[in-house]
């Protein structure tokens, strides 16, 4: 199967209840336009499949994977068994690993196969008013695939939510909108420079995409991932509120911070580094809600 036929997806997660109405299945597309310092799914950023090694699963006394690798990326040094720089993600080692300690994150799914998978929980979509949520990574980077796949999904009558960061030309998103019921649009910081520091890119394109999206009259829920100490200060709240206000957005959903992603870092060949941010003190999110309210924006968690 060539990549033209399908898309690289790194997980299909069932029974999600926090990513849109009802009980949902989330499709995680691989590859992102941004590289946020706190990315919850570090394995999502790169477009290509990559190796993932979980030393805790690795069996003591086992070494069967080492000879499998023709690129010399595997050694017997634990926990640093994998030399990520040398790994080509060929996958030759994965099959023989009895413990599931080695795996390739991301594989190509055909449109059919992905459809079958998301249809499995259909009885629950029906009972709960749920559906599917496109997430990632950045699903819109798979627009070509989605223009073929989403019509199949809609023919089955599924409700579709798109989670997006907006860092792409609006033209990429526009043709998808007829199959998307609701867009979750993430804003991280209002100031362009701060945005670059935090995510690797300024937010010019993002704000433009959001504005155009709103103009199209799409159902949009703006969300802000809260990163304590990075984007939850009074300045950014004020700027973000002002920016949203200009676009006629009256509400924002705050996504509470979670640091569990840091555990994944040593298992991946990623540049992302731990931030060491701990959960903020109790009442922090309520304070943020009040701060937004002070600027005329109804925030909720």
């Amino acid at each position, binding site marked *: 199967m060539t990549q033209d036929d399908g898309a690289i997806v790194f*997980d299909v*997660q*069932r*029974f*999600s*209840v*926090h990513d849109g109405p*009802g*009980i949902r299945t*989330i499709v*995680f597309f691989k590859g992102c336009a941004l590289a946020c310092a706190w990315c*919850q*799914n570090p*394995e999502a950023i790169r477009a290509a499949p990559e190796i*993932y090694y*979980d030393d805790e*699963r690795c*069996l003591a006394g*086992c070494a*069967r994977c080492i000879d499998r690798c023709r690129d010399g990326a595997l050694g017997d040094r634990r926990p640093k068994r994998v030399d990520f720089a040398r790994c080509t993600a060929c996958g030759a080692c994965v099959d023989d690993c*009895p*413990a*599931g*300690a080695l*795996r390739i*994150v991301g594989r190509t799914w055909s449109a059919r196969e992905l459809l079958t998978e998301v249809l*499995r*929980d259909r*009885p*629950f*979509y*029906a*009972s*709960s008013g*749920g559906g599917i949520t496109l997430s990632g990574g950045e699903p819109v980077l798979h627009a070509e695939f989605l223009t073929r796949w989403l019509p199949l999904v809609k023919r089955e009558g599924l409700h579709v939510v798109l989670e997006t960061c907006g860092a792409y030309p609006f033209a990429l998103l526009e043709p998808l909108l007829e199959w998307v019921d609701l867009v979750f649009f993430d804003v991280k910081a209002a100031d362009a420079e701060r945005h670059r520091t935090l995510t690797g890119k300024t937010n010019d394109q993002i704000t433009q995409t959001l504005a155009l999206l709103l103009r199209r009259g799409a159902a949009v829920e703006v969300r802000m991932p809260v990163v304590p100490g990075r984007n939850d200060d009074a300045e950014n709240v004020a700027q973000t509120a002002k920016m949203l206000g200009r676009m006629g957005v009256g509400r924002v959903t705050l*996504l*509470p911070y*979670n640091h*569990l*992603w840091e555990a*994944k870092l040593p*298992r991946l060949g990623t540049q992302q580094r731990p931030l060491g941010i701990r959960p903020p003190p109790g009442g922090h999110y309520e304070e943020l809600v009040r701060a937004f309210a002070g600027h005329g924006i109804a925030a909720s968690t």
Partner: protein
Amino acid sequence: MSSAPAPRISSPFAHAPETREHGRAREARAAGRPQRLEALRNDLLAAPYTLCTQKAELLTEYFRDHVPADPLVGALAPLHFALTRRGLARSLASGAPQPLWQLRASRALQALYARRLDAAAGEPAVLHHARALAHILERAPLRIYEHELVVGNPSSQRIGAPIHPDLGGILMLPELERLATRAVNPIASTEEQRRRLAEEIFPFWFPRSIQSRVAVLAPDAGLANALLRGDRFVLTQFAGISHVTPDYPAVLERGFEGILEQVETARRTASTREQAAFFDAAAIAARAAIAFGARWSEHCAQAATRQIVPQRAAELRRLAGVFAQVPARPARSFYEAVQSTLLTHVIVHQESFQHGVSFGRIDRYLQPHYERDLAEGRVTREEAIEILGSFLGKAAELLPLFNEMATEYFSGLSSASGITLGGIDEEGRDATNEVSLLVLEAYDHMRLRQPNLHARLHAGSAPGFVRLAHDVVKRGGGMPAFFSDEAVVPAIENLGIATRHARDYAIVGCVEWGVPRRSFPAAGACFLSLPAALVRALHGGATADAAPVSFDSMEALVAALRREIEALVAEAAAGNDAIERAHARWRPTPLLSLLVDGCIASGRDVTEGGARYDSTGMQGVGLADVADSLAAIERLVFDEKRTGVAALIAAADADFANDAALQRRLEERLPRYGCDAGPAEAWAKRVAQIYCDAVREHRNPRAGPYAPGFWTMTTHVGFGRRLGALPSGRRAGRPLSDGVSPSNGADHRGPTASLLAAAHAQGPLTGNGLCLNEKIEPWFVEGEAGTALLADLTRGYFRAGGMQVQYNIVDPAVLLDAKAHPERHRDLVVRISGYSAYFNDLTEEMKDDIITRTLHGGAGPIRPVDGRACG
């Protein structure tokens, strides 16, 4: 009830000890609990578990004094008993088989006793047992406990475990002395109780009990040894049949006087001596029930005169009036209806053993009484809840009595009295009503391990009922369990039951769907280990000590498995047939027969096939283990060609001692039943079909079908302990999967996947119920949205064809704390396979099983990379 507000009883437990309440949810509930129910609940939680020998004593007294004996038996049996007693103790302790010659000799002697005692007795057994019941009901002391609105004593103790020497009670003999001190489920008894049992009661029943007489009728003299091994099947009906939903509504409508009239009318048309004897016995039983009600009336009146608190005296006088009417005559009010139901339940238990005698659809039969009283101002909603709460407390007073071996298979001390709420009526309309809600609310106050609450749902269920039922279960305790009318009704019809009657089903005991009032479903009769059959198939029809055999295709393996399952079913059915024939011949239950439609019309006891519908339940245990094993063999041997069948089996036989990596691969990398990837679920469906077909081949001695089920109690622990490792990667001795639930850890794709996997394996042939355990973390179902979410899960699963599901929603941290500090968690109720139990009453092994059972729950905002393959 008067329309005055319910009396407030001051309770010594008004402030519940701190240690009893854990978590905010429980405190909140306690705060809203009516004081009377709070007091009752505390008394019940504090009451010790005690052995009840009342029925044993009175029954023995009657038979010794009134049924002619035989001198030869009188001379031989005591010697035989003394010998057997030692052998029994030895084998129960070690599981060592008894020599076949001994079993044969014993059988010959028991056959002799049976012949001679039958001849000496003169009259048919049914008459003797009817008179014995009357003897018991005339003499059983009556006790009224503080705060009770609904009275009656299922046993002589507040929380009592009656022993039945006429059935299988003798199996307790070797353990009597350590009953009070055993590690699991200690039960208090007096020295005098134990002495009389050992020296008088058991010796008397040794030549008469069902336990002894089964050997006379069993085709296989080695049956006792097979049961002692307990590795392939378990037959329960030595202990009694019970497992029935009696026609309590008939008592409410006609009273025992009306029923007696029916018997007397039918007596005139009796065409055989047997029928005449049955009718005479039935009439004796009905009169005994009527007299018992009169005794209660007098007792309450007298208690009222001694009572110094005026409020309580008034309550007792009122009860005296109630018993002047019921259960002899029709119930005229809600209160009378509830009390009549409970007293009839008590009466049934003076004859039958305490397992699975169920109340049926009480919301349906209490509703007219409630509506009428409410309209006429004779009861308020709050009073009705108090009455129902008091009634529910009564159902928690009974304990089953198991010996140590049986405790492994049936841990949790449930006597599984079922109450069924909601569902459609005979015409297919929603029958849910206000009483359905009242019972749920009363249960929410009581939250005891019993009775067993079941909610029937269908597409048109009243939304308020669906919501409340899920709201109640999400706060722990595992009740109610949920049943889908759309899926269950066809499964019952498949047993040859008319649609109208199938639609009226109610849950018998744990999860068994039966037809109330009209059927004798013997629903808890047999449990079979499907993995044990697989292991034999993999060893050429021999035990795991033999060399593993090879197969050149999955089809060849499946054919061998089918043969083994058929042989296992046939062996268990033959053993059970002998037990049922022994009941019919020697332990009829004329009182129960009054309460099962068809018996009076046919002039036959329920044990003889008098019921309108008859069946026997046969449960397949370990479905997921077999499915996972087949999926593993298919993948590793036939798809990936990593190894051969024989090599894989040999590794398993060695408990993977030399191949840890293989064991890990099996556990981690293969598609297992529960993650809804396809192959393992397809195998589960196929194995379920093979099993159901094999079971349906057989008919019981009552001319009814054997009905297949997939629920386990805790037989999955007992069977698992006696089974080596499996090709699924499950290690030797570990528990098997329970019901149709996935193996521990196999359902890591969350509840929707495991629910659908289970739905896939089910089908309309499952005539005797199945059980799916879903464990959900409490934070997932918080708030109203959480309740809705849980209901959505249930409904989605039912849409997909699911039949039953029960939720264990409990914080794992609480379970761990309860294991470490049992004293802090006396009221912690958890769901086992098909029933609820106090966590403290479980074996340590079962506690661990509950704790390690997969915790579901979303990944939250972080998506963990899951190293496990699922397809």
